[in-house]
């Protein structure tokens, strides 16, 4: 599986879960969202997006439904499941712990 550039491994899942927690989305919209949210800081290749989504689906964290988009085309919309919400909470908490620990270390003054 190709790894997203410059993305800490495993954080893609967290990002996807978070985006879907806001509202159900289709794949294309998710990719746009990823780009706009993180600016150019987080580069997620479109290629790795779908395998990641399918993996989350198979884990039972998100579920998919076919719905119409605004311009009346059929697309697969993903939304968070109960299990996924739990997963998001625990991953987010993990991320908080990890990032605060790292920033704590980084901010140590070199006295």
């Amino acid at each position, binding site marked *: 599986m190709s790894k997203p550039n410059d993305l800490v491994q495993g954080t893609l899942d967290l990002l996807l879960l978070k985006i879907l927690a806001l509202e159900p989305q289709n794949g*294309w919209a998710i990719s746009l969202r990823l780009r706009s949210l993180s600016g150019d800081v987080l580069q997620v290749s*479109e290629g790795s997006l779908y395998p990641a989504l399918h993996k989350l689906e*198979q884990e039972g964290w998100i579920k998919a439904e076919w719905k119409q988009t605004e311009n009346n085309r*059929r697309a697969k919309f993903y939304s968070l499941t109960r*299990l996924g919400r739990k997963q998001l909470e625990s991953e987010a908490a993990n991320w908080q712990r990890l990032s605060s620990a790292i920033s704590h270390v980084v901010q140590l003054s070199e006295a």
Partner: protein
Amino acid sequence: MRLEHWWFTAPLRLKSIFRRRRVERELDEELQFHLENKIEEGITAGLTPEEARCRALRAMGGLDQRREEIRDTRRIHWLTDFVDDVRYAVRSLRRAPGLTAVVVITIALGIGMTATPFSMLDALVFRPYPVPHPGRVVTLVSTSHDKSVDNFSYREYLDISDNTKSYDGVIANAALQGVGFAAEPGATPRVRGGILVSGNYFDALGVVPQLGRGFREDEDTVPGRDAVVVLSPDCWKREFAGDPSVVGRTIRLNGMDFTVIGVAPDSFTGMYIFSRPDFYIPLAMARTFSSNPRKDLLLDRDDRELVVRARLKPGATLELASNELALLAKNFEREYPKLNRDRGAAVRTQFQMRTRDDDVNWKFGLIFTILALAVLLVACTNVAGLLLSRASTRTREIAVRLAIGAGRFRLVRLLLTESLVLALLGGLVGIGIGYAGIELLRQFTIPTELPVKIPFRMDTRVLAASFALSVLSAFFCGLVPALQSTRTDLVSGLKSADGDAPGRKRLWGRNALVVAQLSMSLMLLAVAFLMFRGFQNSLLGGIGFPKERLLMARFDPRLVQYDAAQTEHFYKLLVERVREAPGVQGATLMQNPPLGLDAFDSVAFVPDGFVMPLNREHFTSTMDIVDERYFETLQIPILRGRGFRPSDTAEAPRVTVVNERFAKHYWPGADAVGKRIRLDGAAGPPVEIVGVVQNVVYKDSVSKPEDFVYLPLAQRPAGRLVLMVRTSDEPLQMVSSLKEIVRTLDPNLPMSETRTFEDLYRYAAVDGPRVAIELVGTLGAVGLLLAIAGLYGVVAYSVSRRTREIGIRMAIGARPADVLRLVMSKGLSLVGMATVIGLALGFAVERLMNSMLFNAGGIDVLVYLIVVPAMLLVTALAAYIPARKASRIVPTLALRCE
């Protein structure tokens, strides 16, 4: 958490498996949607449609790779691959229908041949008791120096029940016995099977009656008080047409009124392999069913007739229970030094009880199963050989696959799937063959009126075993060819047309297969022949007296409540009248006929003036009670002394007649006539041996001959007797006049087991062995057939691979005879090797069989003199046919063909 996870994911997996197409279509649609959006985005940004499309695809980073990645996330790869492999296997097998048919039939024969004996072994050894948690039910046995498995007396049973802590209930039952049954008081009683059981029998076993109730504990405490009976489901359906109002009815057993209190459930077929009791009766009613007026089951501490079983408490181990019981046995010995001297006790599992050393049935089952497995092995090696030759014609295909990047493991898996498909097809057909075989076994009829059933059947356990064997044989046949063919050297495999560099290694494998097959079938044939000869020898000797023109019938005056005097009077009149009937040459009474289904009683004795070995108090011998016309009527030769006489009355000095083996055993080199023995221990009454008679076959034709003591009926009265009539014509013509005589004596007295003695003989000495020989013979024949096919295959294969070489040889001057010799010598050297190994195997199995069954001892040379040359002949033929074909190769054609 785990469960919740499954709740969400299981439907997805199922969808991926069963709606595969749809899932794929949706995936395409999803990716397509993304691409289209991306392209539109590009066009809006001012790119040409072409450029936009390119950019979109590039951003995806390879559509097909993405698809594969996504498929991987579904985690059903193993399955979809397997399904693909199966599809591929079916397709490629369809392209080779001949090979497929041969392989399937070969495996089917192997599996089918195994299913039949395994069903026997299963019934005899493995099938659990038909009760809940059968594994916790153990048997408690009494042990003495001459019996490793003996029963307990009722008194001992009570003590065990009261003084052990390892069990949730200790139960006891007596042996199945004939019971005179009448559904209404007025009806003529018929003989059915009843079994005396302790009051807690059903409760402790966990068996809940389907109608009414089981026994209450107190129904087993006061002798003779509670005349209640529980019916078996079979009996309920047969005798009462499954009428639910039977509970509360009064029926008659041995002339006494009993109240039906319940019907056992359909699942409970009893605790025995062969017999299924009709009636369960509390032990406290034992006196109504006693066969021996001199003994009282409920009082005599040494009347050991009860099988004692118990259910282990949760947490109790076999070891603890054993120690506890051994301790108890020590206490018995201390308290009753006379009755329990040197008597121990042990706890045995069901498996241990069924694989007892003194039982031959399971040994037959085991031998057959092992032999059948050998046939299966032959079949498998044969199939492996065929697959191997097929694999080498596929070298090219496999090399191509390897070259374009298939993993070796993946290819081995594919090839194994192919053999799995073959093996399962074979297994399916094989189960059909096995089913037919088992039906054949079930046709066997046992000459008895007691409820005895042939327990062999095709049940889920046999099916599961067959299935497991199929899978196993798939691996066995498939692995070697799969590994070998994927080891191909890529370059040479691709270069040569049908890649054949006859590497030493590969040929070695094939040759080993053929040698294994041939030696195995040689062994099988030898064993089949040995068994045949063994049985033949045991039949040839005869049974010790002429078995023709004998009619037998059993009577039991206890069924109509005769007392001792009435019984004696009845038999006296019966014999007198029968002897006067036309066409009768002689008539005699005995307790049990030779070769009968009932076991002979045994008698404890001490030879007078004999110094007993320190560790034992008495010897035991099987015995029969017979009247004074016994030897004369059966025509058993009296070797020394005399037979019984009318003058040997109850008041006269006590006498006995023994068989030759007994006499030689205790008085080797001396005349036993005139010697005395004391019956029932050293303090018992002295009995003089007045005659020695020739040995007779008492039990069946395979058992070892045994010591035998005859006691005169007048001095040891018995109620349940067999009348044997020697007629001058066809004995069955006598039946109606015999019935008439009995009817005039007492119309209520049932006459049972009315049949010719030859029927009994056929069952005991001919039918069983014949089935056995047929089974092994079939195994051997199938094995040889398979092995011949295998040898033929190998030689034909090597000829076809060497066509070009042979062509060259002939082109430079080899004559057909030279080619013939070349090819034949190859086949024959294999046969030679196989013969040596097969002989070694045969000798080993023969020794095993001699120690288990026949008493022949030594090696039966004739068997090998017949089997070995016969095998050499057929195998030579199998090698000759392809060799001759090779010798007719036309050099020009052979050289041009590649």
